[in-house]
């Protein structure tokens, strides 16, 4: 390109590796980034699951001393943070990254390097969040008073040291300096801040990609539902992240720089934290569930061999849920003493959310009705999503009945509800997607029989774990409780057994994934006889995605390339369909003309490395080392920015 640019790139030799370790560090390919997101999220899923198992082992008896109270508090907080921010969000991001360009017929996202930056920031943010653990050994950590308020028995030592212990929503002032003086909350607050930056970058990137890079002819109402949900989630992130950013800044400033936002003794308002947190937190719930809804909307039509029933209704319902999601936040605070008017208002808006959610569920069932159901693993997971999510939705309606929420809030009834939505909903949906799109990135099929074993283990284990929690909650077992009434022990044991069944199911999945990836049946290009564009290119996906950019004529473009309909509306495979599929696969493997792709770059990972350094610096800002770290972080990020700016996306060819 310009001479200046060439000069600048000589600082760093441009990375050339296309395979191996370095290629993953420097990749800007949305598919590789998606895979990185997927593996990282999965590792965190195992960690978060192990935390859950520890909690459940502890709760197997009412007076258990398996975990100390401090460890228990640290583990449930970290379990929540991990599952929400380091598992469901990035796992959704994995699918979005991998599939967004493929499903709209593009060769990459709008900003490939920003995409890489977003991943690295996410990874470093996650590591940063957990790195608080290391600092429990540093005593006293560089000028900060360690410990916790009150007195601890020596037997109550904290093996998990500085795990954040305020609950994932870190209610103030319990999570303020005075009541939680260890560094844990600082690591959580700044870690979430870093993760927020990653999500914000992704959101902007996906929005631009969605609006600008759709293939010719792909009008808005021809876009697959999963992609619609991706962009709806991107907007939710765009509008909710700044609010949590402010709230987290306020916490960090309160804890580190002496501001008084949540200090009640100085006139601060602890309830303000809750408003800000849930103004983000409720849209966040939809950020977690909408991608899974999108995945299910892709799976069900394919395995019912029917188009999605009420496509437009499903899309608008998704957008409607997102829109309403900004108007219901205070339903997390019905017992906080908010005014009567607020309780009435938020109770009513909460009920209205049930309407678009119902529309979605009915449309999915309408798709299955009169279909020809292929009960393969992805379909089972979609069915699992539907049935479990319905339960979570219905228990949600009982919370909208405000007075009954006064009884149920802060009990296991709530724990049951949101696990039905987030595990029975989001996780089932995401694993369905994994089974469905596994051939896309591996070129092989997952073993279907093992997949079904996994599904049924999860279905049984999940219900054994979470269904009794409804009853436990109604029986008055409060959430986040280290001790509970001995009369509830039997139920809690059943729950613990259920949790282990889930863990066994996960082991089956891991085994299946590993063996299928190596020795699974070769998938071919279109193993599911699918409907959308990502299946019109070979498996595994070639680096350039589309050898020739598709022109879209309607919804379910790929299906209509293969099928026409008879007079009664039943599909008939076009005589030339096989030939067409073979041709697409052939040009996908041997592109008629070379396709130029964006080059890999070092700068995203370097730039991302600056952020956690700044965050460490803020935590230890009272010491010289801390101040130096802030400067170092800023310098690294700025240097990478300059390098980035002067490096062209593609080398001249």
């Amino acid at each position, binding site marked *: 390109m*310009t001479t*200046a640019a060439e000069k600048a790139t000589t600082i760093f030799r441009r990375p050339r590796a296309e395979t191996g370790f370095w290629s993953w560090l420097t990749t800007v390919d949305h598919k590789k980034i998606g895979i990185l997101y997927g593996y990282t999220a999965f590792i965190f899923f195992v960690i978060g699951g192990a935390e859950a198992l520890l909690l459940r082992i502890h709760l197997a008896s009412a007076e258990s001393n398996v975990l100390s109270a401090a460890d228990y508090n640290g583990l449930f907080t970290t379990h929540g943070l991990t599952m929400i921010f380091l598992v469901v969000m990035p796992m959704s991001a994995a699918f979005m990254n991998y599939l967004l360009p493929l499903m709209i*017929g*593009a*060769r*990459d996202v*709008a*900003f*490939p390097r920003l995409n890489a930056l977003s991943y690295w920031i996410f990874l470093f943010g996650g590591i940063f969040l957990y790195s608080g653990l290391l600092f429990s050994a540093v005593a006293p950590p560089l000028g900060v008073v360690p410990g916790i308020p009150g007195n601890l028995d020596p037997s109550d030592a904290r093996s998990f040291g500085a795990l954040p212990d305020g609950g994932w929503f870190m209610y103030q002032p319990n999570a303020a300096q005075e009541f939680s003086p260890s560094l844990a909350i600082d690591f959580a607050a700044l870690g979430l801040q870093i993760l927020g930056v990653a999500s*914000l970058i992704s*959101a*902007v*990137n996906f*929005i*631009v990609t969605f*609006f*600008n*890079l*759709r*293939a*010719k002819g792909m009008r808005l109402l021809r876009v697959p539902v999963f992609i619609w949900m991706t962009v709806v989630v991107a907007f939710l992130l*765009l*509008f909710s*992240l*700044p*609010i949590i*950013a*402010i*709230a987290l*800044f*306020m916490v960090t*400033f309160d804890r580190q*720089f*002496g*501001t*008084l*936002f949540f*200090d009640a003794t*100085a*006139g*601060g*308002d602890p309830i*303000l934290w809750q408003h*800000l947190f849930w*103004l983000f937190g409720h849209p966040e719930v939809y950020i977690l569930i909408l991608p899974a809804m999108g995945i299910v909307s892709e799976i069900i039509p394919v395995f019912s061999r029917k188009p999605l029933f009420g496509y437009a209704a499903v899309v608008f319902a998704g957008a409607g849920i997102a829109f309403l999601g900004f108007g219901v936040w205070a339903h997390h605070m019905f017992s906080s003493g908010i005014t009567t008017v607020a309780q009435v208002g938020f109770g009513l808006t909460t009920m209205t959310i049930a309407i678009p959610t119902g529309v979605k569920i009915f449309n999915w069932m309408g798709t299955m009705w009169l279909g020809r159901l292929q009960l393969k693993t992805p379909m089972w997971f979609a069915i699992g999503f539907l049935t479990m999510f319905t339960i979570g939705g219905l228990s949600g309606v009982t919370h909208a009945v405000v007075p009954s929420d006064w009884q149920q809030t802060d009990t296991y009834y709530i724990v049951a509800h949101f696990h039905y939505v987030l595990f029975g909903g989001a996780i089932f949906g995401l694993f369905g997607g994994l089974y469905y799109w596994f051939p896309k990135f591996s070129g092989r099929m997952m073993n279907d029989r093992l997949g079904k074993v996994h599904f049924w283990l999860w279905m049984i284990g999940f219900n054994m774990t979470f269904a009794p929690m409804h009853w436990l909650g109604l029986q008055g077992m409060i959430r986040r409780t280290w001790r509970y009434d001995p009369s509830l022990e039997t139920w809690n044991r059943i729950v613990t057994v259920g949790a282990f069944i889930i863990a066994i199911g996960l082991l089956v999945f891991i085994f299946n994934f590993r063996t299928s990836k190596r020795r699974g049946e070769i998938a071919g290009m279109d193993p599911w006889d699918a409907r959308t564009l990502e299946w019109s290119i070979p498996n595994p996906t070639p680096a350039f995605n589309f050898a020739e*950019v598709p022109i879209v004529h309607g919804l379910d473009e790929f299906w209509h390339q293969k099928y026409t309909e008879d007079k009664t509306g039943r599909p008939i495979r076009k005589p030339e369909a096989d030939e067409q599929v073979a041709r697409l696969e052939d040009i996908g493997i041997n592109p008629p003309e070379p396709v*130029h*792709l*964006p080059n890999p770059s070092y700068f995203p990972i370097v730039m991302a490395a600056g952020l956690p350094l700044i965050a460490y610096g803020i935590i230890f800002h009272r010491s010289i080392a801390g101040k130096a770290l802030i400067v170092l972080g800023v310098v690294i990020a700025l240097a990478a920015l300059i390098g980035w700016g002067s490096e062209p*996306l*593609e080398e001249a060819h």
Partner: protein
Amino acid sequence: MTAAAHEAQSPHQDLHESTGVENRKLAMWAFLSSEFLFFGALITNYLLYVGREFASGPKPSEIYDIPFTSVSSFVLLMSSLTMVLAHNALSRGDQGATRTWLLATAMLGSVFLAGQVFEFTEFITLENMTLATNPSASAFYVLTGFHGTHVAIGVIMLLSLFGLSKRMGGLTNRQFLNLELVGLYWHFVDIIWIVIFTVVYLLTAVPGAS
């Protein structure tokens, strides 16, 4: 202008842009819409504490120096004008004028920042109002501080454009888009200040208290 925008489009993208808005510009709009909520939350946060009484004072609303802040607000407002002039100059292809107006914009932004530093210093040393005096003061400093940071980042971007133009003897068509993006950002920061000045300063100032 359209030609410039077209050329600036990233080369790997041989697909059309469905909206007709260049990728990076669309990204900037999306980012700024997020920023609106960022400042919205900060302003709301400040307003929440306005009516409350605290054990220790003063509250910022009691010590505002409205005439002084009016002047610095006017300075920032004028910088939006010079930004438009820079944009105009470049679309005419007048590189010299572009540099002048870019520098003028950066200077006006710096004057505003200097005003803010002066204001903070006065509040802290003369009025004894620090970050930790009361929640209202905390909210004030965090809000105006974040705005000031945004202005500072804007000034750095303006100076980089100026420097680039100086070194390369002018801005290319490709960099025209950069100037447009910086302009968008700059106007946004300006608009936010107008809101802050009106809502946070003028509407909450306690008359005669200073």
